[in-house]
């Protein structure tokens, strides 16, 4: 802990990088998984392709993905894109299923009633299906965010910033306090992000707790 206070500026800077590297992929992945999840909830063919693909992607170790990304998309090895792209892929792999399950769980009588009242498809999706899918979607988002926050540290292995950098530096200089600082930072960030999403979910879906 003392390390953190003695090196406050450094710690703060590392936290900023870590946050950016974990939140940006969550946001991009979340936005992309909505249409993909919708597709999977509508079509058995899409499901048959997307779900196994998501599973396979998820079994690839993050370090492997981070190392081959620059080769595949041709950017410099130190570019932040090398973490953002793999983590986005992980987020999508995780969220497609959440979104698809959440959309499939919207009761048929509710969507039928919406159709019968004259909703057009896009409006129905935005104002009925998606809001009803939010509780399950946000649960998936929490898992994706927390796992991203922990995975960003791996980026340090290819020289990128974030708390992972504190790990590698700490190891190399035999500075346990530095390693602990990185650890504490990761955990606190994960808990805060999780709590924030939980709160956001409660604010956005007050109805989900009605009638209990």
């Amino acid at each position, binding site marked *: 802990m003392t390390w953190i206070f003695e090196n406050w500026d450094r710690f703060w800077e590392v936290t900023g990088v870590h946050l950016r590297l974990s939140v940006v992929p969550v946001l991009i992945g979340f936005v992309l998984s909505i249409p993909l999840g919708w597709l999977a909830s509508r079509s058995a063919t899409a499901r048959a392709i997307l779900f196994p693909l998501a599973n396979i992607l998820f079994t690839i170790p993050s370090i492997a993905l981070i190392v081959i990304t620059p080769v595949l998309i041709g950017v410099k090895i130190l570019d932040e894109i090398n973490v953002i792209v793999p983590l986005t892929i992980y987020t999508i792999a995780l969220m497609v299923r959440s979104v698809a399950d959440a959309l499939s769980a919207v*009761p048929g*009588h*509710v969507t*039928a*009633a*919406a*159709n*019968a*009242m*004259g*909703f*057009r498809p896009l*409006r129905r999706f935005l104002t*009925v299906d998606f*809001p*009803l899918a939010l509780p399950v979607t946000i649960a998936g988002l929490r898992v994706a965010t927390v796992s991203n926050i922990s995975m960003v540290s791996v980026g340090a292995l290819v020289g990128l910033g974030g708390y992972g950098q504190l790990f590698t530096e700490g190891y190399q200089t035999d500075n346990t306090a530095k390693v602990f600082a990185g650890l504490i930072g990761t955990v606190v960030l994960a808990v805060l992000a999780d709590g924030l999403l939980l709160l956001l979910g409660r604010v956005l*879906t*007050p*109805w*989900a707790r*009605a*009638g*209990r």
Partner: protein
Amino acid sequence: MIEFRAVTKRFEDGTIAVDELDLTVEAGTITVFVGPSGCGKTTSLRMVNRMIDPTSGTILVDGKDVLTVDPPTLRRGIGYVIQQAGLFPHRTVLDNVATVPLLSGWDRRKARTRAAELLEIVGLDPAFGKRYPAQLSGGQQQRVGVARALAADPPVLLMDEPFSAVDPVVREGLQDELLRLQAELDKTIVFVTHDIDEALKLGERVAVFQTGGHLAQYAKPAELLSAPANDFVASFVGRDRGYRTLTFLHADVPVHPVDTAKLGQRVAVTDWTLVVDDQDRPKGWLSGVDGEIEVSDQDLIAGGSLYDGSTLRGALDAALSSPSALGVTVDDNGAVVGVVRADDVIKALAKARAAGEVPK
């Protein structure tokens, strides 16, 4: 007015759900589609608002072929109520009711004002408006479903077993409410049920469907009971249809005077005596006893149903359910008027038949 002209629906798997349906639903009436499970009631209903399109034939709503209208536009002019109410769990009751006005472009305040009005029309406390559907009972949810369907004041209302998921007492209340509403609103209502009693109670005309999507008979309730078109209809309307015919007859039954006594009074009870309270409302019966007694609550034998002077069925039931075989007739305030006898009901029925009031 809704017209089905030679409408057939064959699903992709070959199931014929509706077979050459020809039927006209008159404007401003409640028409009931009734029949066993799988006979095509829901399919017929859903072809009206294009949730399903027919394989062949034409459906006209107020003279216009529904296939020429874009479905969302068509549907905003047709109220639709289903069994599970289908309310939006994530919207308050008020916003649920305001749905169609908002879809049709009303501004939010006007839509909400209208929604609050409708809650009152369907007999719900406007305070319910702030709740979510999960915080209402099944019967209340159904009322909200009806309010939502009525919100944009559509001329046509489609109702698919709207009351079948609630208990019998609540169901009866909702049925009475619908009849009261209809007397005010004068909608063209198609009501689907598999409960023949509900059909006979609500329908001005009833269409009995037979398995395979055939229309077996389309007639007024009294006619279905007295002159079923075939064995299927006869068995579907039930074995006690003769008794149920009485529901549709309002012939006069003579009301006889009855001995009454008040609680605490000393009387000699020689024959069945009706005990009444201070406002002359019936409390129960005393059977004949020797000598004079002081009338107390413990001596009372509970009475049967009361006859309100409306139908022959009510009169007969009052007589049959009474321990004295005398059906108690009351006025609007619940005060005793007299009693009716079962044999008089049978005579009244014979008279009605002779006068041609019972459809053949």
